[in-house]
C-alpha cells in the first residue's frame, strides 16, 4: 500500500530503501560528513506545516531517519529545502535534485564542494526515495 509523504512511516520505509540499495552503499561509502536534512515546505491540507527529514548517513549506511522540526533540520551540516511539489517531482524523478539546486528550485545550505564530490551518492539517495511506494496526499 502506498505510504503518505512525508509521514513517520514513509521515512522509515525510506531508511530501509536506502539501506537495501546496493548502489547507495557503494556511492555513499566515502560519506563521512554527517547528517543530511531535507525540508519540505507546507502545502495545506496535504502538508499542514513545514517538516524536516533527518538522515544520519555515514559510509554508505543510513543509521537513523526521523521526522524533525524545521529548526532542528537547520542544525544539520547539510540541509536541502524545497516546496512540497518540488519534492514530489524529485521522488518521481521528474526533477534532478542537482538541477533543482542549480535552478534555485531546491535550496542548499552546506558546503557545496562536499556535495559536488558526493554527487553520485546524492543521486542514489534520490533513487532510493523513488523505491518507496509513495502516496501524495494532495492527489
Amino acid at each position: 500500500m502506498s505510504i503518505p509523504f512525508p509521514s513517520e512511516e514513509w521515512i522509515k520505509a525510506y531508511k530501509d530503501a536506502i539501506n537495501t540499495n546496493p548502489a547507495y552503499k557503494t556511492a555513499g561509502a566515502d560519506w563521512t560528513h554527517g547528517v543530511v536534512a531535507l525540508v519540505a515546505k507546507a502545502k495545506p491540507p496535504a502538508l499542514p506545516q513545514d517538516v524536516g527529514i533527518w538522515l544520519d548517513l555515514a559510509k554508505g549506511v543510513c543509521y537513523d531517519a526521523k521526522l524533525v522540526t524545521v529548526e532542528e533540520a537547520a542544525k544539520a551540516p547539510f540541509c536541502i529545502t524545497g516546496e512540497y511539489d518540488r519534492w514530489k517531482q524529485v521522488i518521481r524523478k521528474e526533477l534532478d535534485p542537482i538541477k533543482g539546486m542549480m535552478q534555485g528550485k531546491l535550496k542548499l545550505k552546506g558546503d557545496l564542494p562536499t556535495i559536488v564530490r558526493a554527487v553520485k551518492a546524492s543521486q542514489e539517495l534520490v533513487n532510493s526515495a523513488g523505491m518507496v511506494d509513495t502516496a501524495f496526499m494532495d492527489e
Partner: protein
Amino acid sequence: MKGNWNRIVGIDLGSGKTHDISLPEAVWRDLIGGSGVGAWLFMQHTAPKTDPLAPENPLMILAGPIVGTTLAGSSRFAVCARSPLTGIWGEGTCGGNFGPMLKSCGVDGLYITGRAASPVYLFVEDGKVSIRDAADLWGKDTYETGDMLAKRHDEKRARVICIGPAGENLIKYANINNDKGDVIGRTGMGAVMGSKKVKAVVVLGTQKVQVADQAAYDAIRKDVLEKIKNSVPADSLHSMGTDASMDLGMMTGDIPIRNWSVGEDFDLSAALGGPTMTEKFLVKPAACLYCTIACKRVMKVADGPFAMEEGPGPEYETCCSLGTGLHNKNAESVLKANELANKLGMDTITLGSTLAFAMDCFEKGIINEKDTGGVRLRFGEVDGVFKMMEMIARRDGFGDVLAEGSRAAAARIGKGASDLAVHVKGLELPYHDPHGWHGMGLAYMMSTRGACHLQHLVHPIEQGMVFWDGVGLKENYDGQKSEGKGVLVRIAEDLGVPCNAMVLCNFVAWTLYPPDFPAILKAVTGFDYDIQSYLGCGARIWLLKRGLSNLMGVTSRDDVLPPKILAPYKEGAAAGSVPDQDVLRKEYYKARGIEADGKPSKAALDAAGGLDEMAKRLYG
C-alpha cells in the same frame, strides 16, 4: 547613444598612420558591439578570402557598450579576424582587466592592419596611439612581457595584452594573454597578432564611460549583484572555479576522456575535479574587474617535479584538455602544463585536443617515435606532453606539424588520421561531450567560428543549470535526444550572441533572466531594446557571421560532427548514445532559415533587417 564612444582607432602598421573610424548609430544599435561590430567592419573593408596571416586581415580588438561600466561580468573584450586555424570567421573574448581600461582610453577598439617591419607594441594612452619598438620583448613569454610593459608604463594602472613565442612563430592556435591567466584563446588570434609583428598592446586611460539612464543602470547593477548572491551556479563557480562541473559532468556523460574514446572514469574526476583541485592547490579565488563571482583560481604547487609558483590555475576546459583528454590523472602536471601554455601563449583547448589526437595516432601506430623526434606520446604519460609543447611553440620537428592544429596535422599525417581529429570546421571541440548532450553537438556544428561552447547559452539551458521561461524554451531537456534541439540551439544562440557582443560574461548571464539582458543594454546605451529586439540582434549577428563564413567557403557539408562523436561509448552515462546529426541539422536549418547549401536564406536575411549588404554578397 551612450555606452559606446563611437570611436575605433584604425592603425596601419605599414605606414605607421592612425585614423578614427566612427559607425552609423544603427550599426551599434543593431549589432551592439564587440564581435558583432567586428563582423560588420570585416564585411565593409576586407575581401573574405584574404589570407589570415596577410597584412590585409584586420586584427580587431573591440570592447562592447557595457565594458567600462561597473556591472559584474562587464570587464571583457573581443578580438576578431579571419582565423588562421579554421580559415573562417574567427573571434574570442576574454575577461581580466584590459577591456575596461581600453574603454577608459575613450575608444571602443582598435582596427589593426598591415605588418610592422620589425617587432612593435602599441601604446594607447587616452585615445592617442603610438607604435613602439618591441625588439627587447620579442622572444619573451607572456608573463615576462606583461610585467615588463606594466612596469615601463604605469605598474598600477597600465593594462597589457600580449603574445608569447607561439604567437611570434605563428602557431595556428596561438592565443593573446591578458594579466597572465586571461586569454583570447580560440581561433588563433595570437597568430594574426604575431603576423603583424605586434607583440603587445598597452592601454592607459582616464575617461569614464557614460550610461544613458543612471538610475535604471544603478538598479540593474544592484539587482545583478543580488542575483549572483542567490545563485547556486555562481556559488559553485566561486568556491570551486569553472572546474566545479567536472564531478557532475562525469555523472552525466559530459566529460571527454582519452581523445573522446572512453565514456567514464571516476578516478579522473576524483583527481581533477573542482573539490580536489580546490583542496589541494587553491591559494585564493580571483576575479575579473567588478565581478563578485570570482571564478578565477590562484593556485600553487608547493613542491615536486611540477612545482608551480603562485599563479593562475587551470579552468575546467584545461583540466579536461590537459587532463581527462590525455587520460592524465596527475593534477600537478595539469597545473604546470597550463602555466606553460599560458606563458608560451597557446590555446589550451586546441593544444590539448591536438596532443590527444597525436597520442591516439601514436598508440594506433599511425605515427611513431621516428616521426615525433623520439618523443613518446602516450595517454597518461606527461613527459611527452611538456616536450611536445615546447616543440610546438617553436615549430621544432614534429612540433611544426602539430602547430597547425589537429585538422591540418591529420591531413599531413594521412593514414586515416583524420578520423581521430576532433574538430568542426577546423576548430577543436571544447570539453562538453555531445554523446551526453546532443544539443551541444548541434551548437558545435552550427557555431559561426567552428566548435564553440561560449557564443550561445546551450550549456546551461540543456543541462538545466538555468530555467528561462517566456522565450520558447522547455523546462527540461533530455540530453541524449536529438529531437527538439534545433529550436533550443537557435534560441540559446539568440540569447547568447548579444551577451557576447556587449560583452557580458556567460557565467554572470547564467544568474540572470532573459529580460535582464535587454534591460542592461537599454540602461547603458539608451536604445529602446526589449526582449524581442534583443533576440533579433542575436539572430542578425549570427546571420552576419555565418554569411561571412559562407563567403570564406563554408557550406552545409561543413556542418558535421567528427567521426569520434558519431561512434558510441561502451560505458558511462552516455553509453550507446550518439547525436543524430541529420535530425539536428534539419531542425536547425528550419529554425534558423538556412538553405540546403548552408547559406542563410534570403528571407531569413531580410527578416533580420540590416543585412542588405550581406544578402547582396550572398545572392547578388
